[in-house]
C-alpha cells in the first residue's frame, strides 16, 4: 500500500513546497529527491505486482496490474532523468534572463501537478477518475508549454488547451456510454466504472453501446496521443515547450494516453471480436505513420522534426496493438518504452543545441561535432534509434511489430486498409502489402530524418558559437539513456520481460 501512497502524495508535497521555496538550489534538491522517492516506491510496487499479480488498494480506488505498472516504470524513469536535466537547463534559462528567478517555483509546481495527474491516470481503477486525471494533465501542461510567454508559445499553449479539451470531452461521452451499458448489468453502483468490476462482466455488456463508446474514447484519447488527423496541436506544443517539458510530453504523456486507449480496448475486446478495435487502431496507426513520415521530409525546425517522429512512433505502436496477438502487442508495449527513452534523449539534446546555437532552425545549426561533442554523440544515437537502426532497442520492437503484421492473416471482410492497399483477393498478399507500405515509408523516414540530423552534426560551426562542452548534471541522463538504448537492444532484463509478458496478457483476450 505504501508505494502507491508515496507515488500519489510525493508530487503533491513537492508541488506545494515549490510554491514556498525561493532558492533555486533547494528547489532542484526537492525536485530530485521527490523523483528519487517515486522511483524507489515504483520499484517496490513492481516487486509487489510481480509477486501478487495485481494490487487493489485505498478502498478500491487504486488498481495496479502489470500493464499500469509498466507505464509507471516509464513515468518514473523518464521523470527522474528529467529532474537531473532540468537542474542545468532551468538554471541556464534563469541565468540568461529568459525567465524571472521567482517563476522557477511556479515551473516546478506545475511540473509536479503534471506528474501527479499522470500517475493518477495510470493507477486509477475507475474509468471516470482516469478521465478526470487525463484532463488534469492538459490543464497542468498548458502553462508549461506557454512558459516562456513568447507569442508562439502562447499560441501553442492555447491550441493545445482547446484541441485536447475538446478531444477529451468526446472521450468523456465514451466513458458515459460505457457507464450506460454497465449500470444495466452491475446495478446502480458507484463501482460500475471500476475496471476490476467491469472486466468480470464485460461479456454481458451491450456490444452496440461498447462499439460507440470505444469510437468516442479512441478519438478523444487519440487526440492526446497525437494520432493523425487529431495531431495538429502536437508539433506546435513540442517545439514551443521548454526542452524538459517536451521530453515529458513526448516520452511520458503520450504513453499514458496510449495506456488509456489500451484499457478501453481490453474492455471492449471482451464483448466484441478483437478485429473491431484492432482494425480501428491499425487504420489510425498506419495513417499516422504515413502522414508523419511525409511531414518529416519538409521540416526545418529540429524540435518539430522530433515531434513528427513522435507521431510516427505512436502510429507504429498502434499498428502493433491493432494487429494484436502476443507478438504485436508485446512489440507495441516494448516500443512505448524504447520510444520514451529515445525521444526524451532527443529533446534533451534539442535543449542543449538550442542553448548553444540560439536557434531552432536546422539550417542555423552546423558543426555540432565540434561545438558540442557529447551532445553530437547523443543526437547521433537518438537519431539512429528513432529511425530504427540496429543495434538500438527501437529496432527490436519495430521488427516485432513488422513480423506481427506479416504473420497476421486478416479476415477478408474486415480488412479495409489491406484491401485499399493491395487490391487483391489473397490474404497473404494483403498483409504483405501492409508490410511493403510500412517499409517504404520507413525508408522515406530514414532518409528524411538522418539527412537533417547529419546536416546538424557535421561541418563547421557558425561564427560566434563557442566550441567545446564541459560536463554538467544535465549530461548524466544523456549517458544513461544512451546505455539504456544500446543495452535494451541486446538484453531485456528478466523483471521487465516478465512485466511485459503479463501486461500483454492483460490486453490480449483469448
Amino acid at each position: 500500500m505504501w508505494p502507491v501512497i508515496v507515488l500519489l502524495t510525493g508530487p503533491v508535497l513537492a508541488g506545494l513546497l515549490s510554491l514556498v521555496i525561493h532558492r533555486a538550489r533547494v528547489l532542484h534538491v526537492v525536485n530530485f529527491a521527490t523523483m528519487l522517492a517515486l522511483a524507489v516506491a515504483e520499484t517496490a510496487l513492481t516487486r509487489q505486482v510481480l509477486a501478487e499479480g495485481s494490487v487493489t488498494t485505498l478502498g478500491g480506488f487504486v488498481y495496479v496490474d502489470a500493464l499500469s505498472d509498466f507505464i509507471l516504470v516509464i513515468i518514473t524513469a523518464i521523470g527522474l532523468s528529467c529532474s537531473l536535466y532540468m537542474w542545468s537547463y532551468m538554471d541556464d534559462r534563469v541565468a540568461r534572463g529568459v525567465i524571472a528567478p521567482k517563476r522557477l517555483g511556479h515551473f516546478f509546481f506545475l511540473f509536479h501537478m503534471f506528474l501527479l495527474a499522470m500517475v493518477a491516470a495510470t493507477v486509477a481503477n475507475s474509468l471516470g477518475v482516469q478521465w478526470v486525471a487525463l484532463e488534469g494533465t492538459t490543464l497542468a501542461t498548458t502553462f508549461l508549454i506557454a512558459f516562456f510567454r513568447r507569442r508562439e508559445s502562447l499560441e501553442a499553449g492555447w491550441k493545445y488547451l482547446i484541441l485536447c479539451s475538446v478531444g477529451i470531452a468526446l472521450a468523456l461521452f465514451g466513458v458515459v456510454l460505457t457507464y450506460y451499458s454497465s449500470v444495466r448489468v452491475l446495478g446502480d453502483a458507484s463501482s460500475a466504472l471500476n475496471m476490476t468490476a467491469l472486466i468480470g462482466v464485460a461479456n454481458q455488456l451491450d456490444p452496440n453501446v461498447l462499439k460507440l463508446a470505444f469510437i468516442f474514447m479512441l478519438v478523444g484519447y487519440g487526440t492526446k496521443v497525437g494520432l493523425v488527423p487529431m495531431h495538429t496541436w502536437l508539433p506546435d506544443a513540442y517545439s514551443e515547450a521548454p526542452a524538459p517539458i517536451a521530453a515529458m510530453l513526448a516520452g511520458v504523456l503520450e504513453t499514458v494516453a496510449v495506456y488509456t486507449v489500451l484499457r478501453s480496448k481490453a474492455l471492449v475486446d471482451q464483448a466484441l471480436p478483437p478485429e473491431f478495435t484492432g482494425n480501428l487502431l491499425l487504420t489510425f496507426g498506419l495513417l499516422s505513420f504515413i502522414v508523419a513520415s511525409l511531414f518529416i521530409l519538409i521540416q526545418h525546425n529540429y524540435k518539430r522534426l522530433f515531434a513528427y517522429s513522435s507521431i510516427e512512433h505512436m502510429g507504429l505502436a498502434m499498428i502493433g496493438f491493432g494487429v494484436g496477438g502476443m507478438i504485436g502487442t508485446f512489440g507495441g508495449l516494448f516500443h512505448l518504452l524504447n520510444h520514451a527513452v529515445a525521444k526524451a534523449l532527443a529533446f534533451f539534446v534539442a535543449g542543449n543545441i538550442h542553448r548553444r546555437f540560439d536557434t531552432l532552425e536546422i539550417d542555423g545549426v552546423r558543426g555540432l561535432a565540434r561545438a558540442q561533442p557529447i551532445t553530437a554523440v547523443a543526437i547521433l544515437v537518438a537519431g539512429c534509434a528513432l529511425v530504427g537502426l540496429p543495434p538500438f532497442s527501437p529496432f527490436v520492437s519495430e521488427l516485432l511489430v513488422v513480423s506481427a503484421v506479416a504473420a497476421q492473416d486478416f479476415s477478408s471482410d474486415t480488412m479495409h486498409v489491406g484491401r485499399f492497399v493491395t487490391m487483391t483477393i489473397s490474404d497473404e498478399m494483403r498483409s504483405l502489402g501492409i508490410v511493403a507500405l510500412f517499409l517504404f515509408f520507413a525508408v522515406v523516414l530514414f532518409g528524411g530524418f538522418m539527412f537533417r540530423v547529419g546536416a546538424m552534426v557535421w561541418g563547421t560551426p557558425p561564427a560566434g558559437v563557442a566550441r567545446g562542452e564541459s560536463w554538467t548534471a544535465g549530461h548524466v541522463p544523456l549517458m544513461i539513456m544512451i546505455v539504456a538504448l544500446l543495452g535494451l537492444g541486446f538484453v531485456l532484463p528478466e523483471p521487465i520481460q516478465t512485466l511485459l509478458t503479463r501486461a500483454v496478457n492483460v490486453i490480449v483476450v483469448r
Partner: protein
Amino acid sequence: MPASTQLGSQLVDLCSVLLLLCCFAIVAQRRLSACVDLFALQSAFLAATAALVAFLTGHKHIYFAAALTIVIKVIVLPRILRKVIERLNVSRELGMNINIPAGLLICGALVIIAFFITQPIIPLGYLLTRDSLAIALAIILIGFFTMIARQKAITQMVGFLVMENGVFLGATAAAYGMPLIVELGVFFDVLVAGLIVGIYTHRLQDTFDSVDTSTLTVLKE
C-alpha cells in the same frame, strides 16, 4: 407505463429539448455577452433536468450534482467569462468562419445525425429518460461545431462548456448520474479550465492586442 412515469418522462424530455434550444440560440447569437447568458440559462435547465431525474427516481446524489451545476455553471463560470468580456472591450463577433443561417442548417443536420447514431442503443435505456441520450449527443456535436465556427477565444470556451453540458445531460438522463467522485472531478476540471481560459485571454490580449484566435497563425507548416 403508469401515468406518473409517463408524465415524468415527458417533463425530462421537455427539459432536454430546452437545453437543445439554447444551443441553437447560441449558434444564432453574435453578441458575446448574450452567448454567455445563454450558456448560463442552458446550465440552469440542466440543473432542472438533474433535479427532476433525482426527484422521479429517488437517487439523492443527483441533487448534489444539480446544486453543483447551479453554483459552478450558472453562477461562477458565467461571472468569470463576463469579467473577461468587460476587460477586453469586445462585445460582438464580427468575423465568423461560417455565417449564421448556414450554421443553423448544419446544426439541424447534426441533430439528425445524433438521433441516427444513437438509434441502435436507445432501447437499452431507462424508460424515463431514453430520448435524452440522443439529445445529449446532439448538444455535444453542436458545441463542437461552435468551437470550429467561431473565432473569439470566449465563444470557443462557451462551445467547450456546451459540450460538457451535453455530456452531463447524457450521464444524468441516460444513466442516472455518474459515480459521485467522477462528477466532482469533472466539475473541478471544468472550473479550472474556465480559470485558465480567463488567464489566457488576458495574456493573448497583452501579446496580440486581440482575443481573436484567427490572429494565432505564427505556427504552421
